[in-house]
């Protein structure tokens, strides 16, 4: 067989791409990562505006056990590469009626907060915790199974061992119940007060779906906050940076500002890539970390796709976008009391956002909007100039607007939102803003080459998960593999790591069998 330039070319330096790059370099393969942007990390990154370094995309570490599993597979100690801090309190929560509470991580302290708002819900809260703990135990137990070699990770023997853990049994009825309910129904069962329901029912936004469309299984995301959200020193970009160091240590290479224009497909197999400047790089296999739509329709090209694939890729819905605006503040504000501040509206307004506004392509009044405000410099002061603060504000808005163009209203809209934040949470904010950058869904799409600026790539609903999400090993182009949030299990840094592990494992097995 002719010698190729590299064994594996990876398109994109998101967490998925870098997970593959580090694992495959460790296996001794010649790996090259090509990243279109000048920065590493894709949706888990940051940028630097005169010392203000807001997180771009991911804002905290959830499910950090998965990070440890990746390092276990790499044969390295996570502590040598990343330094985490626990985020506690988890949220400063502000409700429409003026209620403002710090939500602590500790289960019992949280019960006191619940009791101070609605004494009747304390019992429901403890029963919620007991049920969620069962599920959490399953997750922990699965992760307790020692990692085998990379090749074995995707083999039935190992997967069987993980699935057959005893802890599955007590959690089965709860899991079955959650899986057959929507999130709003689950939350309503445990809690009676609308304010408490809202506090336990908004984190479905991390799945980028409204509560009435999203699986009840997600109710344990809120519980995971009780188990700990973490923040790495240096910001979220420390995670891809750590993976890059590992990859380079094992001999892998990375090139920035190098967009891939085409995946070279001959006789139904991927043989390398062509860059925007026309250079061709040959490879034994290609892994794409780009969105599945970009990978198949733009990089592979429709002419290489059978009808069913073309149709599926074109019609698969993207998740909701995650428009964000970033702010550098002239002075630290005492009203920023926690790493995260969440502003929620009355429950009916919150529910209406989806149907009355989002689905119709409308923007709601900022005063009726929910916001997640993240202050990166709260846990790591080095992420803002001395005495100053940096904030990222994530909100819900549709990609397609009925009456406006995002580019025309980006700044005006962000300032309206900032005025609302000033009134509802941070008095004096408007005058305190030194610098602001409004990244609308359209801008997110441009900067990250992320179709529709989609939070989690593809929707994470039943019809887009499991066998209905794009495969790690392409079914129509030999030698092409996909990793990242558009594959299983979906969006979120730890899940994307899992996808990187699975794709790399399959590739290694295919190489051993001479099947790429």
């Amino acid at each position: 067989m002719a010698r190729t330039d590299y064994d594996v070319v990876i398109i994109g330096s998101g967490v998925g791409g870098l997970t593959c790059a580090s694992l495959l370099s460790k296996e001794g393969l010649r790996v090259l990562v090509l990243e279109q942007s000048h920065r590493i990390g894709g949706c888990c990154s940051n940028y630097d505006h005169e010392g203000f370094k807001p997180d771009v995309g991911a804002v905290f570490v959830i499910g950090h056990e998965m990070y440890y599993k990746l390092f276990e597979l790499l044969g390295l100690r996570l502590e040598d590469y990343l330094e985490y801090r626990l985020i506690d309190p988890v949220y400063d929560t502000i409700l429409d009626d003026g209620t403002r509470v710090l939500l602590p991580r500790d289960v019992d302290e949280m019960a006191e907060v619940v009791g101070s708002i609605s004494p009747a819900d304390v019992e429901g809260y403890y029963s919620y915790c007991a049920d969620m703990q069962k599920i959490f135990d399953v997750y922990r137990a699965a992760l307790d199974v020692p990692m085998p070699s990379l090749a074995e990770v995707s083999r039935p023997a190992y997967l069987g061992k993980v699935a057959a853990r005893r802890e599955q049994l007590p959690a089965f009825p709860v899991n079955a119940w959650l899986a057959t309910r929507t999130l709003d129904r689950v939350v309503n069962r445990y809690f009676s007060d609308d304010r408490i329901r809202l506090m336990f029912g908004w984190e479905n936004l991390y799945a980028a779906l409204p509560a009435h469309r999203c699986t009840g299984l997600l109710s344990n995301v809120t519980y995971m906050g009780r188990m700990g959200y973490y923040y790495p020193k240096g910001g979220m970009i420390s995670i891809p940076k750590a993976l890059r160091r590992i990859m380079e240590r094992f001999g892998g290479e990375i090139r920035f500002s190098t967009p891939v224009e085409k995946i070279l497909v001959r006789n139904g197999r991927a043989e390398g890539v062509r860059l925007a400047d026309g250079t061709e790089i040959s490879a034994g296999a290609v892994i794409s970390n780009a969105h599945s739509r970009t990978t198949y329709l733009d990089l592979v090209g429709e002419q290489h796709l059978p009808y069913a694939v073309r149709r599926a890729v074109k019609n698969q819905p993207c998740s909701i976008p995650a428009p964000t605006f970033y702010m550098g503040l002239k002075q630290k504000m005492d009203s920023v009391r926690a790493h995260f501040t969440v502003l929620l509206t009355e429950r009916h307004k919150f529910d209406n956002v989806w149907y009355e506004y989002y689905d119709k392509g409308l923007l709601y009044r900022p005063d009726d909007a929910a916001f997640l405000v993240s202050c990166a410099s709260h846990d790591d002061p080095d992420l803002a100039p001395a005495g100053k603060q940096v904030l990222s504000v994530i909100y819900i808005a549709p990609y397609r607007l009925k009456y406006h163009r995002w580019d025309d209203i980006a700044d005006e809209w962000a300032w309206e939102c900032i005025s609302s934040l000033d009134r509802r949470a941070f008095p004096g904010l408007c005058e305190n803003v030194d610098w602001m950058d409004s990244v609308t869904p359209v801008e997110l799409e441009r900067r990250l080459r992320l179709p529709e600026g989609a939070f989690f790539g593809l929707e994470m609903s039943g019809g887009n998960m499991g066998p209905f999400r794009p495969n790690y090993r392409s079914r129509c182009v030999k030698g092409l593999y996909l990793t990242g949030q558009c594959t299983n299990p979906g969006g979120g840094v730890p899940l994307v790591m899992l996808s990187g592990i699975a794709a790399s494992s399959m590739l290694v097995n295919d190489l051993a069998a001479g099947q790429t």
Partner: protein
Amino acid sequence: MKSSLKMLALLLLAAGAVGYLMGVRLDEERRGRVMKLLSEAREMPFRVFV
């Protein structure tokens, strides 16, 4: 055989009519959700080939 086919056709027709009537009665939001579910169900089989 023929009569069972007729029966089946009749049943399908009746189910279609009931479905239609229920659909007409749904408020706009619910109808939107049902339409979305139906279109998802139509597309799902194609997704397993990707």
